[in-house]
């Protein structure tokens, strides 16, 4: 049986959260889509959505969001209790 009110479980990269005061690499938030999750992160740490999303609007090219093991987009739905990993892609030199 699923708990319809269970929050999603979110893991954030350390080099993202250190840009924000009191940033945390693990948190639980209520969100029905990845877009709502980004809004919730923005509320918690103003400016974080801009670090993860651009103005197309879309998840930034070198950021990967995995939901229950599958690569997601902003419109991807989140089931109650979903596992969300925000990861940085291989990039740079």
């Amino acid at each position: 049986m699923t708990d319809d009110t269970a929050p999603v479980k979110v893991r954030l990269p350390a080099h993202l959260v250190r840009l924000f005061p009191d940033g945390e690499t693990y948190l639980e938030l209520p969100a029905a889509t990845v877009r709502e999750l980004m809004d919730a992160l923005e509320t918690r740490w103003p400016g974080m959505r801009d670090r993860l999303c651009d103005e197309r609007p879309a998840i930034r090219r070198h950021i990967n969001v995995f939901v229950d093991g599958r690569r997601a987009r902003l419109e991807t739905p989140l089931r109650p209790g979903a596992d969300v990993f925000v990861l940085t892609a291989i990039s740079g030199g």
Partner: protein
Amino acid sequence: MAQKVLILIGTKKGAFILESDPARTSWSLRGPFCDTWPTNHVVGDRASGRIYAGGGNEWFGPAVWQSDDLGASWTHSSRGLAHAEGEAPVKSVWSLAPGADGVLYAGVEPAGLFRSDDGGQSFTALDGLQKHPSRGDWGPGGAGLILHSLVLDPDDPDALWVGISAAGVFHSADGGRTWSARNRGTRADYMPEDQRYPEHGQCVHCVVKAPGLRHRLYQQNHCGMYRSDDGGVSWQSIEKGLPSSFGFPAAAHPRDAETLFLVPLNGDTAGRFMPEAKAAVWRTRDGGASWQALRSGLPQKDAYFNVLRQAMATDTLEPAGVYFGTGSGEIYASADEGESWTRLAEHLPTISSVETLVVET
């Protein structure tokens, strides 16, 4: 009151600061700052003492960093630093210019201009460049379609010039709402022979304003060095006497409009390093009519480095200090207007920009 001189250094892996007393003989290095993000430009606001750094990270996008304690601590923001929804995302901040009354301008890639009225906490798009009729023709230079030169007019807070690779120089008289191309007389050698003086599309590398003369500008272009005495409406070549027509940075003297410093490289298809691998800064004292090579203290053998478009600056002391940073991570300084040089740092990441800030302590 005591003074400190700061050299503000933007690199591919963060910002650094070199610091000295006004004698400029003993320097200490601090950094890297800005979480080691690629940092294209670091500037100081002389009025407030605040330091701003602009850059962009491949993962997290563009940002402007601020420090109110000469680099000891930093915050960052990119609120509003985005083109309109649906447009190509802003990748990085490339140029910063503090203006009067606490205004901060930020130039970005892809080419666009933003303004902050709250000390870099939030930004408003000045979208006149996006709406310019020639916009569809603009092509990127080697580093992208970047707005790298941002020149304010100290006599008119509504007037500014920008340099965009490879769209050319543009001027606004209304605070960035509308723009006119200012490229007459500058060459585009990479165009067909009968189209080498177009209205726009030139590959400008650096534009600086001379002090004291309201309409005097200098420009280092991909194709030549130029002077303008009418605010960029027309440009005259000043490359005669220089070892090549190619280079990136230009630095004006803080008080003398006739003095300019350039770093010509050996050529755009010849490796883009020091001519004959011997380093020199070239100085004019007569507005570009004649040039003198300044080599004392600079490597005269095996100098295969470049100096990028924003990587040379002067300070405001007497005599003026001149500083440049190389693609191979060295900072060279002169405390006597280029007569003699000392290497202040080596092994830094690739240096994108060098600016100075003199502060009272």
